[in-house]
């Protein structure tokens, strides 16, 4: 692997050298460096920064520091009580060892596991802009049906991010030029003709925290993940949802999908359709179908359309019946 310099970050506001990259848990970046996919000259370790706390926000929300480990976040009693969807999503991901290393910010910034992206002996527009995308004709069984482009159909692999998208989390970002807040659903770009740019972050912008807004009905939320084996596999389809039902009607709903798009896919069309409607299995299916009208499946990933609608209806139906049972 390419020789690199290792430094420790002193402050989130420090200037990041041009060929430097932030290092947190390293569970993805180090692999990519071994493969020759990522070749930074400098690694700036952010794990010594004081960003490893989960703190209460005045409005009842929570601020999750960027270097809070996935396992710690999943186990936090406040997360488990107020945002069970997030805890479930985290625990559905990776393995115990990886969750002990992986961080909140790093999880968001992990890169696609598209097999071409990971193999420098093949073309890939995300890794080598302009080289082409063999996935469209080749191995795309687990690539995007929504939000892709001719240039790229990569999927974002995170489970955690899908839950954060459903919860409407805000990503706090800092750099030498200041601070800003980005909705987690806006953090990842759709590829268009620039698939090399995963996110809207500028070079040197560091994620410092993720804010979870107060969302009382998220106590009734869930994450369900379908995968090719029982554990330790990326999702082939996943749903994060929170549901507020009163008198059999959907008062509010949050719905996001994983493994179908270059970003965690917030299903706003489906949400809009459901609000005020009876909380029935049929309506859940119809809402999912409406959202999936935008889907552009290829030869081997059309099953994701069926899988996603089935998962959506199953999760919402279960949340609805759990609500009725109270």
């Amino acid at each position, binding site marked *: 692997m390419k020789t690199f310099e290792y430094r420790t970050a002193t402050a989130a506001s420090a200037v990041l050298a041009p060929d430097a990259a932030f290092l947190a848990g390293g569970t993805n970046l180090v692999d990519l460096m071994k493969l020759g996919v990522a070749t930074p000259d400098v690694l700036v370790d952010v794990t010594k920064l004081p960003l490893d706390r989960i703190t209460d926000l005045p409005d009842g929300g929570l601020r999750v520091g960027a270097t809070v480990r996935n396992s710690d976040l999943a186990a936090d009693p406040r997360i488990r009580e107020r945002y069970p969807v997030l805890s479930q999503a985290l625990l559905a991901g990776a393995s115990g060892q990886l969750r002990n290393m992986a961080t909140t910010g790093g999880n968001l910034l992990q890169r696609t596991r598209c097999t071409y992206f990971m193999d420098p002996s093949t073309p890939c527009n995300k890794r080598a802009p302009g080289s082409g995308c063999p996935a469209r004709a080749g191995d795309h*069984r687990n690539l995007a049906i929504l939000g892709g482009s001719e240039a790229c159909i990569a999927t974002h692999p995170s489970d955690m991010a899908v839950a954060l998208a459903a919860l409407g989390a805000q990503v706090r970002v800092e750099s030498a030029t200041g601070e800003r807040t980005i909705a987690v659903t806006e953090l990842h770009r759709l590829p268009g003709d620039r698939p090399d740019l995963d996110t809207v972050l500028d070079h040197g912008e560091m994620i410092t925290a993720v804010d979870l807004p107060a969302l009382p009905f998220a106590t009734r939320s869930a994450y369900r993940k379908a995968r*090719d084996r029982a554990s330790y*596999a990326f999702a082939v389809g996943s749903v994060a949802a929170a549901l507020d039902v009163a008198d059999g009607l959907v008062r509010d709903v949050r719905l996001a999908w994983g493994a179908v798009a270059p970003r965690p896919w917030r299903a706003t069309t489906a949400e809009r359709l459901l609000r005020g409607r009876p909380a029935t299995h049929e309506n859940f299916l119809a809402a999912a179908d409406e959202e999936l009208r935008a889907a552009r499946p290829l030869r081997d990933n059309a099953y994701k359309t069926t899988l996603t609608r089935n998962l959506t209806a199953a999760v919402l139906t279960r949340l609805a019946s759990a609500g009725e049972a109270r």
Partner: protein
Amino acid sequence: MTATVGTPLARLEGPAKVTGAARYAAEYPQDDVVHGWIVQSPVPRGRLNAVLADPTADAIAVLWHGNAPRLEPADDPELDVLQSDRISYRGQPVALVVAETLEAARRAAQVLQLDITAEEHDAVLRADHPGLYTPEQVNPAFPSETASGDVDAALAAAPVTVDVTYSTPALHNSPMEPHATIARWAGDDLTLYDSNQHPSGIAATVAGVFGLEPERVHVVTEHVGGGFGSKGSARPNAVLAAMAARVVGRPVKLVLPRQAMFSLVGYRTPTIQQIRLGADPDGTLTAIDHAAIGQSSRILEYAEQTAVVTRHMYAAPNRRTGHRLLRLDMPTPRWMRAPGEAPGMAAFECALDELAEKLGIDPIELRVRNEPAAEPEGGTPFTSRHYVECLRTGAERFGWAGRDPRPRQRREGDWWIGTGVAGAIYPTMAQPSTARVRAVGDDFEVAIGAADLGTGARTILTQIAADALGVPVDRVRVRIGDSTLPKASVAGGSSGSASWGWAVTGACRQLRETGGDEAVFDTTELIEKQETEGRHAFGAHFAEVRVDAVTGEVRVSRLFGMYAAGRILNPRTARSQFLGGMIMGMGMALHEEGVLDPAMGEWMNHDLAGYHIPAHADVESIDAAWLDERDDQLNPMGSKGIGEIGIVGSPAAIVNAVWHATGVRVRDLPVRLDKLLCAD
């Protein structure tokens, strides 16, 4: 003296392994060692014209066909490394970089520029390919085709027939310890610390390649972290490490990265199998036809014996088996746990389930009704065959009675539930080996150049020696894993315990009888006199699965194997072998698949994140049991091989259970959720 064979002695090297004290090939400290990294071809077919090394990379040497030392041609052309400009598959070694550190070697390899003239390639196995041909033999030396009676007429006349095509994908053996070699020269003497299944075989092969007498090469293989067939013969890593060490004059360490395991060490060929069965209404088979298609590379013909297993399994007066092969611009397939039997029985035992459904006969009864009295082809009597007992006893323990034969009948919540059964068989083999025993004070030292792949071979040989000598196991020390010890056969074909145990028994008995200090026993003559037909272990696999109606996800709630495999030498290590085979069978049924990109000529999911094998969570209730089978015609221990039979038939039991749960026959393995998913 109480016998120790048959008792569950724990692995003798267990404490060393779990404390990290056991040394694997890449872990032998060397002064002045340097590291090698293989540069693999990025195209499936073409010519390498030149390499251009990046001057900023810290390479000690960059070897390619333009500057590599000439080698003697090997029986296995894969070992003619860096000898020609011809590129025959993507991933083939085209250069070797040597550097002071692993990281530097890897970097230099990544930035090495290759001047390649690429050519059109062909990477896809298909049943209508004009290049298909019938090989003369299939692995290792079986006739490619057999026939008796009139299959076509019998099928035409049969009241009930099944004509189905099953396919299995490329499967990859990727043991936890990758292939690894440290090579060190002292003059013309070469020492290889190498991870393999056959130390003396590796020594002989590598000696041949370098034009040396076999005793000049010393192979040390004390511990092996799995092989599954992929380490049965020398792989390019051993030759490349030795070549590089000779060039740079320092010891060279070469460890394959996980990604390279998918192209450089063999794989199980994909298969396309057409199975045609004819039966009378009572279930009596009148015709069996098993036609298998597989692939090999351009540089070596490896023809998997996929349909050979069908020659031994069921009675039928009209029968035919055959193989066709296609040579592609792809890596060379080789042995992977139960080559032939595993894919052959995966397809055949599913086809038989389809016949049972058509006949309306219980799948166990159908099998029992077609039990042969002797080898179905050739008529050799079986030394022992307790297949029916495995089916019956297994059914009882599994709880088969009262099963509703109709599919898609049991549902619990979101889960469809089903059960399935399939047979198992594996040939009982022994291969010539030599063992030596010496009296050392009150103790005994037994020596044989065998390899313990983690299965417990060292432990079992200690038990066998102790009983043969009539002493407790703590007075026996077994030395294995070294090519300078008396020559042992390969740890393959489930033949290790029989082959080595026979030689060890012979040597120990001889020492006892002669009362000397040393005895050596060679089984070659005894084994050459043995009949080879009619010797098999049998078994039956039972599976209960549940299939998620929402997602199509399959979970194996229960998996049970009932075996008749001769005398079980050590129930602890045997159980582990059986269960390991069954779990690998689960992988074959549900998870494992090399995903080919035809345009790239590459399996894209070439790491263990993308190539799925069962995780712990996939294994729920699993158990193995065995009949107390006595067979005194095999070897002094009465043992049969158990390393592979667990993967034979277990995939079919699971696939049949999936059908019983859902009503869906998935005929292209693996059974993944997208093949079962239906709109809610």
